């Protein structure tokens, strides 16, 4: 399918769903329950021309992105420790399983007891990202091609060269896959954490306030902002991660 046709199809789908939304909002007839797409678009336009809007978005992005980066680093570190030491693995693996099984809302509320609310979205993102990266990197370690390990052993290839030529290229596809999954989840978890702990100047706080004050147009407008930002950030970062990962894997 050509690019033009793809764009056309996407526009048709978008118009279709907006029309459905408009029809339902007319049937409901109460803007406080379901505002019309036109009202939401107008509200979104109003938001877009304020400086606070961009500050709010940047704050949320910075928080969640910090959590993502910290989570990725911690996940890689813990997976490496698990690979290097069976004792470390015995300690780390159950903790990762517990984090993975705990609902994100419980994690956020537990964190609220201990930490100031400003850093909770960061910590929530970290805790969501760590298990994903940890498991992917561990799978990567487990799937290093044995024939190449044998070659490295036969020729006594140094540790540094093994890491560069064998380990990193083998693990990179798993790292890229893990990072792609983690990215979307971290963003959703981060915004959810902001809604629960309402830190100053954040998208989550705007969503929370919109709900409290029954500002449905604001609620819908900010939700659209979350979706668009998620889409843009995912596209940008995934393309960056894939590019760097591909270069390392294939040289």
């Amino acid at each position, binding site marked *: 399918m050509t690019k033009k046709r793809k764009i056309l199809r996407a526009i048709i789908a978008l118009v279709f769903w907006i029309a459905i939304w408009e029809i339902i909002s007319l049937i409901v007839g109460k803007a406080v329950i379901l505002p019309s797409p036109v009202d939401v678009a107008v509200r979104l336009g109003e938001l877009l021309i304020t400086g606070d809007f961009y500050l709010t978005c940047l704050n949320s992005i910075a928080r969640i992105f910090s959590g993502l980066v910290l989570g990725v680093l911690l996940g890689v570190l813990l997976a490496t420790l698990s690979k290097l030491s069976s004792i470390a693995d015995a300690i780390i693996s159950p903790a990762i399983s517990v984090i993975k099984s705990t609902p994100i809302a419980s994690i956020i509320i537990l964190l609220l007891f201990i930490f100031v609310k400003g850093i909770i979205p960061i910590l929530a993102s970290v805790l969501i990202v760590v298990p994903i990266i940890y498991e992917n990197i561990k799978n990567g370690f487990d799937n290093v091609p044995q*024939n*190449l390990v*044998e*070659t490295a*052993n*036969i*020729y006594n*290839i140094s540790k540094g*060269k093994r890491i*560069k*030529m*064998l380990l*990193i*290229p083998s693990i990179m596809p798993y790292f890229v896959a893990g990072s792609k999954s983690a990215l979307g989840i971290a963003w959703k978890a981060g915004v959810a954490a902001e809604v629960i702990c309402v830190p100053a100047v954040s998208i989550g706080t705007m969503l929370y306030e919109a709900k409290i004050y029954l500002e449905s147009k604001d609620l819908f407008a900010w939700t659209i902002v979350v979706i668009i930002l998620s889409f843009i950030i995912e596209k940008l970062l995934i393309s960056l991660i894939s590019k760097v990962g591909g270069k*390392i*894997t*294939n*040289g």
Partner: protein
Amino acid sequence: MASILLENVSKSYDGKIILNDINYKIDSGFVALMGESGTGKTTLLRLISGLEKADSGSIKVEGKIAYVFAETNLFNSVSVLDNVTCVMNGDKKNNEAVAKTILDKLGLENEYKTKPKNLSTGMAQRVSIARAMASDREIYLLDEPFRGLDDKTKSDTMEYLKEYLSDKLVIMVTHDIKEAEYFTDKILSIFNLNLTQNNS
């Protein structure tokens, strides 16, 4: 001096005996190892190289081993040149010069920067041979090293290899009697789970 001593070596996989009570000593020179597929030729090379352990018996190896694997086992993330120099120690520039000389002799002078995944089977095979040669070991285990090579390239590669390995201990697995005879008159076969020498 390089040597390989096999004493009562046996190996089985999943209860199926592959090699049974092998006793053999190789002091020097070139040995060709023949036999039908699945008779344990590669297994024997893997046991000698230490990649696998024998179920019983002992294997004593004097000298460092280079191994040309049947599947080439090249590192796809780095260039042909890096694949060859990675087995060398010492000065990088000097290593590269030596590696380039070997690659040139094997007809790979235009492939220094190529990634192995972009090479043909025959080219990849020659890179694997170049890597083994660059490692400068005393013992060479070659598992079907000329697979995928056309007649002309095979002939050139064999000639260079014969000259280069003249003072080494070499065991080469092959299915081609002409290949074997080109290098040596010491041809071993694995028959009935054991080694038999066919002097021609």
